[in-house]
């Protein structure tokens, strides 16, 4: 199983809602899409599910390309859209049967799966109630049951816990964690604690661009978090940049002059070493840079999020 997104771009008019996003998921896990409202999370998910066609780029599942015309591949995906649309006139069992059969399950297989998802999502007592009578929490569970009824390999959940009370959030989280043992779960959220509680891997997306791709361990140990270094040297900005790029292969690197010194912002993907500050120190020493300051701010997701998405003007999709 693998889900591969390469160079995905989606333009609405001349605005890029998704801008050259690439990533790959190759083992069962929960991947959290994090970003401010309008950052491009929903659009990315809609393209993965085949609802929208990308302007550029490809998405492949097990090497097969997803597109608005590849209908067969869609039975591998379970999708809970952002607004959790439901046919509220239908009773819960009618709706779930509809979802199962529309996914291509036979009537018997649907019945079998129906029993499983009803038990799993705790829908037994509302099974014969029309959906419009249900509380928001139950509706969300119905939406989730719909997404998993055909036993898909990939689950795309767009803000699965929005509007739920804390107890319901915990229930949905435990359900998602359970499902993630054997499935790829991609969920979007703007609740940072949800990411910390649930996700093995975090993508931060801002203004359509993927600005962070890190595992939760990397986030916790500061491996890829932002490291600030202040050095004094006679070398130019470009020379310093080259030295750091060659020595550490940072995922991100930005430099600026600051009162006669050079300030660097680094992010390094290196999960083997718990602390890259030693390496940075060595680089500085061997190149004759005088280190004035070194600060790692990697462990705090909220800080990373702020740093990467600050100044977002909430435009786009």
């Amino acid at each position, binding site marked *: 199983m693998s889900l591969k997104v390469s160079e995905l771009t989606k333009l609405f008019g001349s605005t890029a809602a998704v801008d050259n996003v690439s990533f790959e998921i190759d083992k069962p896990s929960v991947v959290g899409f994090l970003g401010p409202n309008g950052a491009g999370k929903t659009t990315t998910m809609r393209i993965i599910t*085949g609802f929208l066609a990308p302007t550029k780029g490809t998405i492949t599942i097990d090497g097969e390309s997803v597109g608005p015309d590849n209908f067969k591949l869609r039975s591998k995906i379970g*999708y809970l*859209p952002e607004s959790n*649309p439901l046919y509220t006139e*239908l009773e819960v069992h009618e709706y779930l049967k509809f979802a*199962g059969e*529309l996914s*291509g399950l036979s009537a018997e297989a649907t019945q079998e799966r129906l029993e499983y998802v009803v038990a799993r999502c705790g829908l037994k007592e509302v099974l014969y109630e029309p959906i419009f009578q249900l509380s928001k929490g139950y509706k969300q569970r119905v939406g989730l049951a719909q997404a998993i009824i055909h036993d898909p390999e990939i689950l795309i959940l767009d803000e699965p816990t929005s509007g739920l009370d804390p107890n319901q959030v915990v229930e949905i989280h435990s359900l998602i964690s359970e499902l993630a043992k054997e499935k790829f779960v991609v969920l979007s959220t703007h609740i940072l604690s949800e990411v910390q509680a649930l996700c093995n891997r975090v993508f931060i997306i801002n203004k359509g661009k993927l600005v962070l791709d890190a595992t939760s361990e990397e986030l916790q140990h500061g491996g890829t978090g932002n490291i600030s270094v202040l050095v004094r040297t006679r070398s130019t900005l470009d020379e310093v940049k080259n030295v750091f790029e060659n020595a550490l292969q940072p995922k991100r690197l930005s430099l600026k002059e600051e009162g006669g010194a050079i300030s660097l912002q680094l992010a390094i993907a290196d999960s083997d070493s718990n602390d890259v500050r030693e390496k940075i120190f060595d680089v500085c020493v061997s190149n004759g840079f005088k280190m004035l300051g070194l600060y790692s701010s990697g462990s705090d997701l909220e800080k990373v999020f702020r740093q990467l998405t600050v100044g977002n003007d909430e435009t786009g999709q």
Partner: protein
Amino acid sequence: MKRDSNNWTALLKKEILISLKTPAAYVVIIVFLLISGYMFADSLFLSNVATLRPFFSLTSILFLFFIPALTMRGFSEEFRNGTIELIVTHPISRGKMITAKLLSSYIIVVASLVPTLFYFIVVASLGDIDAGAAFAGYIGLLFLAAGYVSVGIFASSLTQNQVAAFIIALFLLFIFFILDKVTALTTGSVAYVLQYASSDFHLANFYKGVIDFRDVVYFGGIVFFFSSLTAKWLELKFK
């Protein structure tokens, strides 16, 4: 797990189930039957002829309103509720999606014609009815309904507002209806084309008891044309 390629019937079942659960469809059908029943009874004793022809021509006019009222929900409600996102992300082609929408509305139109068979019984008991012409007339109505439903479903795919979908469908159908009424203003081949494009012109043959292949092709063509247009439009919409 067994995968079933007839999954579009799930959509068909869902459509009919929702129609049965919402009062709107019942109201529309009852209004249709009340008006057609009243007009039928009114004309029956005036004309004093054992024929269903007045009922047929009246029904073809009622269809201008009745069918858009049944089809306006079609795609527009899916757009408004966002449920279109669910359907499109399931393994179902646009063609099958449209087929399910067409068929579900068509089944309801046909079901609402069933009670009108009572008029046939009434007329047959009063006089010597031409059963062949009555049969052909019903076949004509069935073809007309299929064409009108495809126009209505197309209109519903254009907007998420049901009222707008109703008005667009009514407008399009009215054009088909009016075409042969304006032929007096034109001459020669233009008049011929207008006449051929008009739905009433083709219906007239059915009312006479003639089921002509060309008329069948005409209504089949309308269904095909508007279904293809709907498919193309949906394709563009998700680009």
